[in-house]
């Protein structure tokens, strides 16, 4: 319900929603041409944390790029490891044993819950609620301790290798994960939904704000919770099944309202779906090796390869072009928030400053992933 007003295009001033601003969660600058508190034109300016990952990929061998993948989207790093491992395994034709596939799914889903919890905390921080951040980080800390037990690092994992994973999971990890899921299921209705989701101030703050129609999503290539909040039933784990996802039954939360509240609800329900997947994966965890046989120095066949993975923010694509050598000839990283943010200019027009920031929070941006 943004109030329809006539924007006076002549009396505007330019406000830099800085590269350094509390609500951009990273180094993103949005040049806002404002008329009073209404936004006439919003134009994101990128590149402040650009590190040229694609040139690094061409410089080193295939396995040497694995640590870089975690440095792009550090909130859902395991999905990036998974995406890169998938595309190279497809190129080199490496088999991954059953147990390794299950471990990959369990760790990726745990990391997805951690990413959604952090998004929820940061989103409420943008809206002015400080306390929920501490509750969400309390839960997220449990996940990070679990993942630290098996991967060795807490945020930027390089846990997956071509053909499997590098450490096996032990019983303490399994019992820890089950306890964590039981604890989070107990806290979700009270601390997350009663305190925040049903709160009238929050509902008024994000309901009917930031409309993205399905057609806009298609034309701008927005995927993930942003598309699912606009009624598009597109989840790569369901539409383009990879790894062992077809063996789990989980449903994809889709909302038709197309506003920030819909995107908010999609992510919270995805936390519950991820918990369902983890439980089924833990029940059906097979024994066996965790590392398939992969040649030490990979030389995949020349050709064009593409793999897409569902991260917490959308579809992460790896376009790999090989010329038969031991280095990737070209690796294009299709980052989900790069396209999700490209529709910001069109949607934020005529919005209030406070709504524009609530809308940017609902897009769940991670700036190093946009800039690569």
């Amino acid at each position, binding site marked *: 319900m943004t109030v329809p007003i006539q924007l006076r295009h002549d009396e505007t001033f330019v406000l830099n929603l800085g590269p350094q601003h509390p609500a951009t969660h990273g180094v993103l600058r949005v040049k806002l041409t404002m008329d009073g508190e209404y936004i006439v034109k919003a134009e994101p300016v990128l590149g402040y944390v650009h590190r040229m990952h694609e040139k690094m990929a061409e410089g080193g061998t295939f396995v040497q790029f694995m640590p870089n993948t975690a440095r792009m989207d550090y909130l859902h790093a395991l999905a990036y490891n998974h995406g890169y491992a998938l595309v190279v395994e497809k190129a080199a034709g490496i088999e991954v044993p059953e147990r390794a596939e299950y471990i990959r799914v369990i760790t990726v889903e745990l990391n997805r819950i951690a990413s959604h919890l952090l998004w929820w905390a940061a989103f409420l921080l943008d809206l002015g609620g400080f*306390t929920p951040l501490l509750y969400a980080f309390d839960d997220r800390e449990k996940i990070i301790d679990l993942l630290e037990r098996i991967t060795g690092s807490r945020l930027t994992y390089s846990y997956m290798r071509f053909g499997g994973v590098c450490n096996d999971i032990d019983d303490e990890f399994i019992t820890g994960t089950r306890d964590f899921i039981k604890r989070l299921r107990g806290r979700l209705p009270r601390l997350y939904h009663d305190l925040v989701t049903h709160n009238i101030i929050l509902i008024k703050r994000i309901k009917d704000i930031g409309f993205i129609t399905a057609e806009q999503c298609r034309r701008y290539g927005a995927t993930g919770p942003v598309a699912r909040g606009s009624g598009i039933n597109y989840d790569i784990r369901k539409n383009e099944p990879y790894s062992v996802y077809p063996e789990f039954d989980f449903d994809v939360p889709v909302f038709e309202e197309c506003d920030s509240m819909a995107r908010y609800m999609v992510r919270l329900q995805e936390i519950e779906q991820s918990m369902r997947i983890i439980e089924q994966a833990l029940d059906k965890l097979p024994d066996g090796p965790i590392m398939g046989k992969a040649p030490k120095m990979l030389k995949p066949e020349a050709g064009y390869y593409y793999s897409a993975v569902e991260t917490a923010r959308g579809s992460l694509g790896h376009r790999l072009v090989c010329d038969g050598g031991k280095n990737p000839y070209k690796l294009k990283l299709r980052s989900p928030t790069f396209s999700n943010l490209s529709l910001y200019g069109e949607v934020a027009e005529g919005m209030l400053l406070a709504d524009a920031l609530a809308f940017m929070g609902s897009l769940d941006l991670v700036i190093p992933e946009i800039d690569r």
Partner: protein
Amino acid sequence: MNGYWSDIFTGSKSLVTGLLITAREFFKPVVTEQYPYEVPTMTPLFRGHIELIGNAETGEPNCVVCGMCQRACPSQCISLDGKKAEGGKGKVLTRYILDFTKCSLCGLCVESCNFNALRFSKVYNLAGFDKNDFVMDMLKRLEEQNRCKQ
């Protein structure tokens, strides 16, 4: 008009439940870990910076200066060299420098070492005022460990 009244009632009800939840949280025990007084223990697979493994009895590094870790490292932060051993068989390590400022803790060096000469240390609280503090000499560190083991 009914939107007006329902807003007021459901709204105030949700505000009150919010207050009760934070009140209940107010009286619960503290969750945070008081860092300088309570020190966290690292999990067995934790990846601190890499360090050399010494032979159990003699304390000599197992490293045979094959240079596999140097080639495996994506950011070239390991530099090592050795000299021929007196007895003429294999090499002895003389210098092993790790430039920890560029290391991304990916574990490729530890995996590429076939002689069980490298492992991850459990050091987590590294802080320094100067970049050169992080260019570490692993041999010296191994000798200190052996000395304090006696």
